[in-house]
């Protein structure tokens, strides 16, 4: 997994609430057996016209935001389907960090597994950041995961919180499957005990 220590990048404003995963990547682009190459389909229903041309009014199509790596958005981002294709598409497009008042649980977890940092902040702060982000190419933020700090374009620093284990994995690009496999003995011990109590769960 890609490491995330600190990034300095343009933030794009997406002032919508309840952005669901069907919107992030519609179902007709889920028919893949790969994790890569989905960036061109990110937000496709609101990003392209029917003839496939780009919609000028969609924020990520505007010249200033084409290389945005940060999204500032509204509450309950990522609700709906568990499809990991949503973070895959965002990541492939270049998004590394999403800042919102709240996220849907499954999407939030999926981000960390794919090198994307989701940050929850109170609505009042989001309102300020949203205004910053509206300044096009000048909306450059620094997001530092090691120190849990966002630096706004005017230099003001905002603190944020992230679960320590997730922070550790993301900063170091660690694969948590490997970490868990190291606990094989504990898992076996659990299975032995459970098998004695609930044998019907085992074949």
């Amino acid at each position, binding site marked *: 997994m890609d490491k995330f220590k600190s990034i300095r990048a343009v933030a794009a404003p997406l002032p919508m609430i309840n952005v669901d995963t069907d919107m992030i990547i519609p179902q007709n682009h889920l028919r893949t057996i790969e994790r890569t190459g989905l960036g061109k389909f990110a937000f496709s229903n609101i990003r392209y016209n029917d003839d496939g041309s780009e919609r000028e009014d969609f924020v990520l199509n505007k010249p200033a935001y084409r290389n945005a790596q940060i999204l500032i958005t509204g509450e309950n981002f990522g609700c709906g389907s568990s499809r990991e294709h949503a973070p895959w598409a965002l990541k492939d497009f270049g998004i590394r960090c999403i800042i919102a008042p709240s996220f849907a649980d499954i999407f939030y977890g999926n981000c960390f597994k794919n090198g994307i940092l989701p940050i929850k902040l109170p609505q009042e702060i989001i309102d300020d950041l949203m205004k910053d982000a509206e300044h096009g190419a000048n909306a450059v933020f620094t997001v530092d995961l090691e120190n849990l700090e966002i630096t706004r374009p005017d230099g003001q620093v905002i603190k944020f919180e992230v679960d320590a284990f997730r922070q550790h994995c993301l900063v170091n690009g660690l694969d948590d499957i490997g970490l868990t496999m190291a606990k094989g003995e504990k898992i076996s011990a659990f299975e032995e005990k459970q098998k004695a*109590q609930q044998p019907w769960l085992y074949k």
Partner: protein
Amino acid sequence: MTSPRTLYDKIWDAHVVEEQQSGNSLIYIDRHIIHEVTSPQAFEGLRLAGRGLRRKDAILAVPDHNVPTTPDRATRVDSIESKTQLDALERNCREFDVDYIPMMDARQGIVHIVGPEQGFTLPGTTIVCGDSHTSTHGAFGALAFGIGTSEVEHVMATQTLILKRSKNLRIDVSGELGIGVTAKDVALAVIGTIGTAGGTGSVIEFTGSAIKGLSMEGRMTLCNMAIEGGARAGLVEPDEKTYEYIKGKPKAPKGAQFEMAVNYWNSLKSDDGALYDKEVFIDAADIVPQVTWGTSPQDVLPITGYVPNPADAKDADQKASIERSLDYMGLAPGTKLTDVKVDKVFIGSCTNGRIEDMRAVAKVVEGRKVNVAEALIVPGSGLVKLQAEEEGLDKIFIEAGFDWREPGCSMCLAMNADKLLPGERCASTSNRNFEGRQGPKSRTHLVSPAMAAAAAITGHLTDIREL
């Protein structure tokens, strides 16, 4: 003495392999169901890392999202990409020796309908699937939740997940449900009350006499939609109805083991005095048949209502969101909901594709004719289909003008050929009315099976109580 615990706490505590310093726990997973859309990358990940499955006997695979639902499904290919996913599932299951139900098997169907039917879903277990509606299985008093593909791979390799304990949210629905009011209406009314983010970070336990009164099918419909209220999972404590449903199912415990299991399952109840982080009380008598008007399941109203006016919104965000929804849905504020005409009707999905749903539809449409461009009825599994045909329901549907299909997700998410055309409006028994959910620019109104059947007959949204 331990302090009183909720049902959720009990299942959680029984699955902790290790408490970790970061406040997370390593939780054991008893049951894993996989399908063709969210598993290929997980198998690929295992292969690349040279890992295998920790427990083959804890996985069940069945294709559902992409499968064609027409009678020629064995030879039909709707898209090369769909076929690639379906083939990949079969190949992976063979390579990793996973119990796999092929598309042409009578037991094939939607993951969340197949699990319970096979007795794979059992009380007190932890169940995961790379699909958000895994919450459905909570109807059995199982802790069941959707996961992403990376977690699918994590479970395959380790039979565990690293999780943080959720909050306990209790939703109590007591009293008697009125005539024509179903589990689907309860689910929609709950989401209308708490909102699509109301359950975020929580597991919902549904309690109260109206919940106890629901059949297992109804409880599944209710728990299915817990995720639309933002909750990771829904739970109903197991009881005699639960055991009755499970008894004799192919993968369920048998004989003395069944007795032993029931003994354990009887302990799966929230203790008196157990504390919930939040409690919501709903009077069953207040719930009338529901219908959604917008593009989020929380955009829901009683069928007797009117399309809302953005001018009445509580803040600017909500106003913008209502305007956007109405524009997308092609609805004018103040329109009487029962005046909204529909083009198509879809009955099926893991929310309402079970035998009880089929019977409810048959009851409404028997001896009547559909009055919409297309009315699709898709059983949730091959076993539901067989049962319905045994009861002669298929004849009633076909006679009325319905298209009776093979099992699958179908127009619930329109990944196969079953989809709406741009701008078309559908009364649907599925669970999501998001933009584009039933096809690009599709317009969805979520309703119960009886209400969908009524709309098919009249050609517009209809109060089932008046038909």
